């Protein structure tokens, strides 16, 4: 589904991703681990085509198509979805307006309001979001946890092919982690894939992890299975950091 080859990307002239490889198959769940500042969010932004990040080398293909030639909205329409580490506040645009506009943009057709409302309400109930939030401006005045829930609400409503989740489980209370994790589990099936960035692995509770990768200093320095997640939560990144330095 997703193939990244020797990806190098820079921001403000500084190279952050320095030859990164990653392959994600259809139906798979991949976890990316790594210390702060390693380039995880940068990778997500580059995958979505953030204009600030300049790709200086390598390739990215999604379902066989070269992603690098596509604009952000085109990538989204191909089925990429990013749950942001820090979601933007968008004054004046309500949650329901934004999600419905996205759905219409993706499908290229009208999304009937009443059916949409019904579906949205159902999803919000599932995520234990107050339905009145549908009429609030997107993320404006939302708490950290509410913002993450609103990202998962969008994930469920838009139903993309590839979900990129950047620390969706950070800053959440115990109950919220539970809700968000089961939301992701509800989304996932054999026809879509997840790339999950996490520092605490709580979000993985209801998922079967197919592969884990350690990203340090703009490179994947270690690939493994779910055992890698446990190993790091116990031992930290020390061993890998040395590998990089050496």
């Amino acid at each position: 589904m997703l193939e990244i080859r020797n990806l190098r990307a820079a921001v403000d002239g500084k190279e952050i991703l320095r030859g990164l490889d990653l392959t994600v198959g259809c139906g798979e769940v991949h976890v990316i681990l790594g210390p702060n500042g390693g380039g995880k969010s940068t990778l997500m932004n580059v995958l979505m085509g953030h204009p600030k990040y300049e790709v200086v080398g390598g390739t990215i293909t999604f379902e066989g198509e070269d992603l690098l030639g596509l604009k952000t909205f085109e990538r989204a329409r191909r089925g990429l979805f990013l749950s942001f580490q820090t979601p933007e506040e968008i004054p004046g645009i309500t949650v329901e307006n934004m999600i419905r506009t996205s759905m219409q943009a993706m499908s290229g057709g009208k999304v009937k309001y009443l059916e949409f409302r019904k579906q949205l309400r159902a999803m919000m109930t599932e995520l234990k979001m107050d339905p009145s939030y549908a009429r609030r401006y997107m993320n404006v005045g939302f708490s950290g946890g509410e913002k993450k829930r609103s990202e998962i609400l969008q994930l469920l409503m838009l139903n993309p092919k590839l979900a990129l989740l950047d620390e969706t489980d950070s800053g959440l209370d115990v109950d919220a982690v539970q809700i968000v994790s089961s939301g992701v589990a509800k989304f996932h099936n054999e026809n879509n894939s997840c790339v999950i960035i996490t520092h605490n692995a709580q979000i993985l509770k209801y998922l079967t992890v197919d592969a884990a990768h350690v990203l340090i200093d703009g490179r994947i320095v270690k690939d493994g299975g779910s055992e890698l997640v446990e190993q790091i939560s116990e031992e930290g990144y020390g061993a890998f950091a040395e590998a990089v330095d050496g």
Partner: protein
Amino acid sequence: MAKKTYVEDIERTLYDIKDEDRSVYKSHAGLTEEIIRDISARKNDPPWMLEFRLKSLEVYHSLSLPTWGPDISALDMDRIVTYVKPDAPMVGSWDELPDDIKNTFDRLGIPEAEKKSLAGVGAQYDSEVVYHNVQQSLVDDGVVYTDMESALRDYEDIVREYFMTLVPPKDHKFAALHGAVWSGGSFVYVPRGVQVKIPLQSYFRLNAAGAGQFEHTLIIVEPGASLHFIEGCSAPKYNVTNLHAGCVELFVKDGARLRYSTIENWSRNMMNLNTKRALVERGGLIEWVSGSFGSRVSMLYPCSVLHGEGARCEFTGVTFASRGQSLDTGASVIHAAPNTSANINTRTISKSGGAATYRSAVKVTKKASNAKCSVNCESLMLDDESRSDTLPVMDIERGDADIGHEAKIGRISEEAIFYLTARGIDENEARAMIVRGFVEPIAKELPLEYAVEMNNLINLELEGSM
């Protein structure tokens, strides 16, 4: 004379041609008593109105142009007569309208017949349309809604009592000009205690031939009564002459409520120098909802005089300035009685080199104990060439006044654009959504169909440039 109109770009050549022809105009130069008498006679004014016009003319000659605000030097006051001659050429036919104006009509989805009347072409205009819109039940309650000429004929006493008492001709040069040459406009009278439940709309009338330039609106809402009046026109009001100096006078009596909504969209050659004022008595409420689009220059600062104890004012405004435009808009409030309060909330947008200035004046007189006023103005600049200024003036004569002022000037956040495009929304639509979101607090004050029109206008303004 050159037929070309200068709707988007300001075409110097046009002025140059006029300059060469100056001798032709010379004989008509200046506004004379004769011209005023002629206007008055054509309109069958009662003698006192002729007197009023002539006095206004004197005042007009005694005043000079404002020395502040946007540049209006393109108005040649020596040839003011070419702007005010009652038979100044309107567009003769639909086909003579500039293409961009025709396109706007098309894009707004306005039907063919309406388009022609909206454009002020004239033949299609039918005043019956408006009168039929006044419900019989309102007529039975004594509500009057008619045009100013008819009002002057049928309700002469009322007109005489109020006409230009709130905006006296000596107020400024264009008020004086208005007093001398006014023509057309709306008259509304709501008797004591009558609640007009559905908004009265002047959608059509405003666009009647010759009525869009110096029109006078006079609304009187008697004690305890209420009214929502909408002056709306989403399509450009096109007039080959390029000065608009209308006047709106609103009288809100004890405990009465008036909501006055306008969405103005002028053709890009227009100097829009409009004066709007409300006098609010004890416990009364004036609500302004004001959308300013189009024009080359606008100077518009609706003023609320909170004259009775506990009188209130709510002002909500949006201004959109694009290439070649300088829109100087805002609001003014005079707290002249105890416990009066005002809330001013505006949004201005500038793009492609347009200049938008927000200008407010808040005055609290010695009599106005416990006055409360909160001003919130936000500006959005869509690019680096555009300009946005905020000029609040406060004149507070009391220590117990509670005055708040908040101003923000910003740009569209690239991160917000990225967020929306990451959800599959293309860049132009993302920008448009953000701009619409920016004016949402204003849009939600409008009746749905006008909110939709305002959104359409914003989309038209944004198109092609981003």
